[in-house]
């Protein structure tokens, strides 16, 4: 316990990076995921196939491999990214595929009559999507996307492998320094858990707010 207290600032800094990487990746992953989902549902056949291929490749490969490809692989093309940007890019690309799948399901669960009613009342297909279909899909998508985000928070531990000193790597460094495992790993487990609870809590709030109707 004393070890933890002595190093709490270091751990907290790790948690800060974990949170930062999670939120940045969530943000870009959400935008990218929505675009891919719309492409998958509403695009022409080329667009649909691109979207399908993207989702299939990302879901079919380990996230750690994706992180290595972005960090080490791109340097072969002279693109040497810093660890944190590389981590954010890799995780955004990764989570976008899962967001896209969740959102595709949500778009398809909006009854067909909603689009028809909007079109019949003179809207273009784009207006109908923006004003009528997508807002409703959001509500259906919140629970699965929420799960994805909580999963993402934990997945950030993988970027310790490219020397980003987030929570996982902070613990590893402390372990290496003090030659004792349990206190540090237990401490970060608690910290991950608290952050997950926090996310779940926020998502619950959003879900409740969207269920007024």
């Amino acid at each position, binding site marked *: 316990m004393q070890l933890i207290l002595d190093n709490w600032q270091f751990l907290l800094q790790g948690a800060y990076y974990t949170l930062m990487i999670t939120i940045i990746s969530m943000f870009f992953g959400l935008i990218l995921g929505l675009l891919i989902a719309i492409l998958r549902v509403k695009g022409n056949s080329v667009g649909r196939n691109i979207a399908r291929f993207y989702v299939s490749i990302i879901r079919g490969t380990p996230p750690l491999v994706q992180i290595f490809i972005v960090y080490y692989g791109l340097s072969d093309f002279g693109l040497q990214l810093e660890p944190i940007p590389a981590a954010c890019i890799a995780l955004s690309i990764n989570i976008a595929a899962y967001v896209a799948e969740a959102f595709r399901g949500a778009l398809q669960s909006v009854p067909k009559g909603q689009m028809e009613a909007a079109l019949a009342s003179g809207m273009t297909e784009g207006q109908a999507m923006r004003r*009528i279909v997508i807002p409703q899909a959001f509500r259906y998508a919140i629970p699965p996307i929420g799960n994805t985000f909580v999963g993402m928070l934990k997945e950030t531990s993988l970027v310790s492998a490219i020397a980003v000193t987030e929570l996982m790597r902070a613990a590893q460094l402390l372990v290496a320094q003090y030659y004792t495992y349990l206190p540090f790993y237990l401490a970060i487990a608690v910290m991950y858990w608290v952050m997950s609870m926090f996310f779940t809590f926020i998502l619950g709030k959003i879900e409740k707010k969207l269920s007024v109707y």
Partner: protein
Amino acid sequence: MITVEHLAKSFGDHEVLHDISITIPAHEVVAVIGPSGSGKSTFLRCLNGLEQLTSGKITVNNHTLDADMKKRQMQQAIFAIRQHTGMVFQQFNLYPHKTVIENVMESLLVVKEMKKVDAEKRAKALLEKVGLLEKIDAYPSHLSGGQQQRVAIARALAMEPALMLFDEPTSALDPELVGDVLNVMKNLAEDGMTMVIVTHEMNFARDVADRILFMADGKIIEDAKNPKQFFEAPETARAQQFIQKVNEF
């Protein structure tokens, strides 16, 4: 107002509408009746382009939609037709994430780009007309089916359509709620609105419609200009059979 020439519609190999031609003048109230699966709803949905025509031509309010048009032209024609055509659905299809008044205002704001105050004013007037002024801030899920359908009618009327299409507007309603909706439609008919109504409400069709289209097997079997006479003594054997079946209850 509406001219349909040689309209045919297939879903895959299955032809649901065969060579339909008909003219409906302005201010006419037309009830489309017939057994289920006869193509009534498909016919109605072709009129505002919710179903793609397989062949033939439809002219609504001087905008022509032709099955042979290029995709882009067709979309423009459909869009033009919908600007002057309101539609009411069997399942209401109100926007569940918007309140009653927002449902009515939505297309005014988005399509007509009307100012919010003006849209609100028109929406309130229409909701008063359908007797739901006290529900303007409720969400659709808090209304009865009959109330929802009256909101849907107000929503369609907001765009000031020259033509209203009704696709079995009372079929999803509890019996005691049907009357309110039919009354609103009757008032609309008396105001001179051009209406095409797919319905199973035979009494309503007889009393309110100017003309009955009896459909079976994807064709218009009987086009009756005198509804009362049609219900007493239909001319075709198929219609006689249908009316007899209906009257058995």
